[in-house]
């Protein structure tokens, strides 16, 4: 599965760093408690530690920024530009499908290029590059597609664009709001329908727990 932000490789590495720090810290604590040998670290040791952290922080900043920049360049939005859609016909040609999304209390409406509207289902073909143009006019909403690993949020009155590559396997994939937007928030979800026959609800192309 291709992740929209192309995170799978780097993300795995960042998660490895996170787990490594956790284990390092916990092992250090356990050793300090249970080892017979006593040892007084010097200040130099601490400076070394800080140097390592600085490298880590700047690597994190670099990794995150380059991934995000690359993603934004695909949108031809080198920066996040608030308040207007990118008008670029060449850019639009690179996408197989463009859907305008209206997020509202409480649901998503998808409008195709042919001006057909569907409530709560975005119908796409396997492997397509899909551009979403998201707007909202009531409160802050979220737009999250777990199968594509992308989350966006939208202020009322704002517009923003994001893109995904549709999953290769046909099925129904969840689209959900991730920002509390009022009493109907839990029901604010839609389906990314990748055409083909697979009737079950899928998060990452998996099966449901009860098989329903």
């Amino acid at each position, binding site marked *: 599965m291709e992740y929209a932000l192309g995170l799978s490789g780097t993300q795995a590495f960042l998660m490895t760093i996170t787990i490594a720090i956790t284990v390092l810290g916990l092992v250090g*604590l356990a050793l*300090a408690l249970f080892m017979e040998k006593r040892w007084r670290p010097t*200040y130099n040791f601490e400076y070394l530690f800080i140097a390592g952290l600085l490298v880590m*922080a700047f690597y994190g900043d670099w990794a995150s920024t380059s991934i995000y920049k690359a993603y934004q360049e695909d949108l031809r939005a080198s920066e996040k530009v608030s308040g207007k859609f990118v008008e670029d016909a060449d850019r639009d040609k690179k996408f197989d499908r463009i859907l305008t999304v209206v997020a509202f209390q409480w649901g998503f409406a998808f409008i195709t290029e042919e001006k057909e509207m569907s409530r709560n289902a975005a119908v796409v073909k396997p492997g397509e590059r899909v551009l979403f143009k998201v707007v909202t006019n009531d409160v802050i909403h979220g737009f999250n597609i777990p199968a594509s690993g992308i989350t966006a*949020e939208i202020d009322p009155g704002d517009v923003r664009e994001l893109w995904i590559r549709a999953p290769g396997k046909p099925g129904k994939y*969840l689209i959900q709001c991730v920002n509390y937007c009022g009493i109907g928030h839990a029901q604010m979800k839609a389906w990314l329908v990748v055409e083909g026959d697979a009737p079950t609800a899928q998060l990452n192309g998996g099966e449901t727990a009860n098989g329903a």
Partner: protein
Amino acid sequence: MAHELDFQRTGAKPHWKPEDIIGTISLKTLFFSDDYRHIALKGILSAFVMLALGGAFALVFRTELAVPGAQFLGARVYMTLMTMHGMLMVFGFLIPLTISVCYYMMPKVLGLERLAATRAAHWSYWILIGAVVLLVIGRPDFTWTAYAPMSLRVGGGLVWMGHLAILLVAISEFLAGIVLTLTALAGVKAGGGWKTLPMMGWASAIVGLLLIIATIPLGFIGLGLFTDWMEMTAWFDPARGGSVKFFLYVFWTYGHPAVYLPFIPAIAILYTLMPRLLGRPMWSYWSGVVAFVLLGLFAMPIGPHHFQPLYTISGWYERMVQIFTLLVFIPSVLHVFNWIATLWSDPIPASARASIPFKFMIASIAFVIYGGATAYVNGQIATDSDFIHNTYWIPAHFHAMFFGFAGQMAFAGFYYLYPYFTGRMYNQRMASSHFWLWQIGLFTKITMMFVAGYAYFPRWVYDYLPLKEWVMPQMMITASGFLIGLGFLIFVINVAWSARRGEPAPEEPWPVEHDEAAPSAVPAE
């Protein structure tokens, strides 16, 4: 030399004596006395009431969430319970408890006879009680972040009480900030300067300043929401010309420093307990001071990382926020490094190993490592725009930091102080079961929240799909929630029972005793 200096800094000298304060107290003294111990005790006791309330609410909605689909709570009741849980836990339990434990320790540690600005401390307490009463009557359902314009369009005619409660919380915390700052300054004067100021003094000065600065925007949020609701103003509602972006920036100017408000006092409690339980100074005094100052400085500008996936923030400003967020790692790690280095430097006394405060302290350090490490991916825009933003990953992170670290550290402080205000020791076995129930419950709960979050389980839903990745973690979180509740019940019974029937505390409740087999703990000079 360094040794003596540090005992001055950690406050070995002034009036630490077990006394039965709680048995001889009248309600009038408890509520209106200017004695720092009474002020602290009333804060601690009402924080426990808030914890019980907030915890009970959590157990109700956790039961609802145990299995997919809607069971017995509607969306509105669920969200009300969730909002009250968040607000009571942070504003009613965590910040007041950590600060009250500091109130109790500060005069002892800084060598003072009383808290500075006791009148402000009283007002801070009563205004907070007022805020809680408003919350309970108003039953808002807009979550603790009260995002406009959603928080202006939620159900119920009494929602304005929630807005006013936010204003009152801001005033209450502002006053607490004044008490902490002035007491720290009095400590500087009494002790002979900043260079010998105990760690708790540094922490109080910094968290006091944070409170004073950060609560001003929060007060504006509360007042602005209230007047917007009354249609006197239109600060935040875009339908009437207000700005959501403005709301977000103002709110998170408080909202991020807010997480340091219990965090820094909890660290201060740790710095106070550790040298006293181990019977030797911390590994480094200045490393801790530098870390406190950096933590205070970095806390202010990084609020916008809470809304990175919005177009509200962009460009170099967003990148700067990301860099500072990643750099906050450094002061936090300096503290943890200091604690582990102290533990490692000399043999750990057998007396410390057996004591409950020490156990809670070690568990807190483990949780701050566990929850803190994930901050590395949380801070990055790319990962944040994937599985982190507003999924259960975030509650996992802040339950580890808030409850696993700050809350448990405050409990360590409470167990430590227990003989000083009851004249008796707690029951060791009950305290041990409390400890283990909490560690097992918290670890399971937090881990399962991480698992659910990694599978994109969204926050603030009472009803969810029966997806394989979601069902098991949710059930486990609920089960561990009940373990934590059971632990708290045992704690309450222990505290109430031991205050009357517990063994009388010795003159020195926390003597430092080594195993005979262990090598000498006196550092070679």
